[in-house]
């Protein structure tokens, strides 16, 4: 079950950020609901940290809303 949730987030992020040069979803506790996502993408270049995180939140809107994600940590980077 835990692995299913992680893979679901990974797929959502991969489809939202096909140009990402790094994309990682860690299950922080092994329980399948505390995640740390890391995305490095040229699409983030020139965006504020707030807007970068907004794009992650948008990509993960469904699992954030339905409770799949209990706690989310986000690390984003541009490529410049």
């Amino acid at each position, binding site marked *: 079950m835990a692995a299913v949730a992680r893979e679901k987030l990974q797929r959502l992020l991969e489809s939202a950020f096909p140009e990402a040069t790094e994309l990682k979803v860690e299950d922080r506790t092994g329980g399948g609901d505390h995640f740390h996502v890391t995305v490095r993408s040229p699409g983030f270049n020139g965006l504020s*940290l707030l807007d970068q995180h907004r794009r992650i*939140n948008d990509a993960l809107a469904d699992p954030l*809303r339905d409770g799949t994600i209990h*706690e989310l*940590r*986000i690390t984003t980077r541009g490529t410049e």
Partner: protein
Amino acid sequence: MSELRDKIQNVIETEPVALFMKGTPQFVMCGNSDRALRALREAGAPVTAVDVLPDPAIRMELTSLSGWPTIPQVFVKGELVGGADIVEELASDGELERKLTDALGSDYQAERAETVVSVT
């Protein structure tokens, strides 16, 4: 419902630094809320905290106002700064103190009070 929304909006607009969190600064109920609070404390920010836990409607209204889905949420002078990761990252390179100075003036650390307000 709209009265709650008005109260939340009022906190965002009138408090220099508003932190919507799980728990209170004295009794933090969530790791991310704790990280945001620590970062703000280290920057010497005057924090006005709102506990979102007493009523699920607080979080719903807050998210509909801010467009930000998770807790905590930090606002400086009415503007969303972000959640724990952003505040921590801004604090680590001095950007948070610069932001606070720009928004509140160079003597903002003199206020340095922690206040808890209730919106319910």
